């Protein structure tokens, strides 16, 4: 359908959709007047039952851990899809990877200021990522946020213009292994729940005192597993896309 045809259809359908949405959303309780039972119950009983002070992370990795299992496998599947599509592309174009020493390769325009900044950023990002992963049960944080912050650490090497150095630090087999280890670790911790407690993904480790680092049972372990998986997934996606750009078919550097 041509663009004009699409726009003509939208001129009719768009306002209709807007009207339907507004009428439909009127049925919701008005903003600020939440009275769902499950949420209020969780707010009240969770700190006593699970000894975790961050209720959102507790829901993510303990009370509704099965949903997180599904979500992290969606992540796994889409990263596998990206890797399949882009590697097939690379094979179809032929292998143009030239051996080049690491020090030779630099992006035009990577100034000294960028290099100094990235040197400062890398330890900060890695430290922040590890902090977020470990303190998921105590303060805002958790596996998902920590994974991306940890992945941004090696990405700062790219900022400094040293893409091949990034490939040395994070080679593809290591990223794939990280991704797979994170995903299986989460599923395996669930098996621990099946063996030692009565249900899959049931909390089976000692709960400890709320507010300490080693509390809330298996929540920190789950958080770390998801963090590893998200780190591997994002770094894999980035290097797949950047490989396409940098290594294949770049003549002048």
């Amino acid at each position, binding site marked *: 359908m041509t663009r004009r045809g699409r726009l003509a259809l939208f001129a009719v359908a768009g306002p209709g959709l807007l009207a339907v949405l507004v009428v439909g959303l009127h049925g919701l309780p008005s903003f600020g007047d939440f009275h769902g039972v499950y949420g209020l119950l969780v707010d009240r009983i969770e700190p006593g039952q699970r000894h975790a002070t961050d209720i959102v992370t507790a829901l993510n990795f303990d009370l509704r851990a099965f949903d997180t299992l599904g979500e992290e496998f969606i992540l796994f599947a889409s990263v596998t899809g990206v890797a399949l599509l882009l590697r097939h592309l690379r094979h179809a174009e032929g292998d143009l990877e030239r051996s080049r020493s690491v020090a030779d390769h630099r992006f035009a325009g990577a100034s000294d200021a960028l290099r100094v900044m990235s040197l400062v950023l890398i330890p900060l990002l890695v430290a922040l990522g590890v902090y977020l992963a470990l303190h998921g049960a105590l303060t805002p944080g958790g596996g*998902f946020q920590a994974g991306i912050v940890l992945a941004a650490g090696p990405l700062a090497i790219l900022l400094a213009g040293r893409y091949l150095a990034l490939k040395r630090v994070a080679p593809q087999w290591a990223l794939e292994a990280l991704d797979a280890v994170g995903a299986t670790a989460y599923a395996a911790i669930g098996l621990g729940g099946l063996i030692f407690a009565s249900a899959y993904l049931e909390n089976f480790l000692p709960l400890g005192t709320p507010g300490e680092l080693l509390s809330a049972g298996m929540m920190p372990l789950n958080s770390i597993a998801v963090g590893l998986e998200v780190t591997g997934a994002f770094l894999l996606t980035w290097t797949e896309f950047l490989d396409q750009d940098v290594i294949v078919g770049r003549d002048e550097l």
Partner: protein
Amino acid sequence: MSFAPYAAAAWLFVVGLYGVIASSNLVRTVLSLTVVQSATYLVLLGVGYRHGGKAPIVADIPKSSRLVDPVTQVLVLTDVVIEATVLALLLALIVQAQKRFGSIDPARLRALRD
């Protein structure tokens, strides 16, 4: 006034959809999809909000304070990260389309297939 977040969400949904439909570049389609997604985040968080409620972190607030609903926050939290990788998959498909058909204009892609 209490309907404002939902009205904003409905508007963002329709505007994002317009961006998807009216684009002549598939990358624009993918980026307008994020606007549609953010409309759903707005609805979910708007539903869970309670007047005078605090964030669901009970580390240092008195035990009987009002908290907002944590369940809708869980839904939005995982969704934000997962959708980024799904969009990466869509972009990989677009790169493939460019390689195979030489164009990322939705109207021209149709013509090339016939």
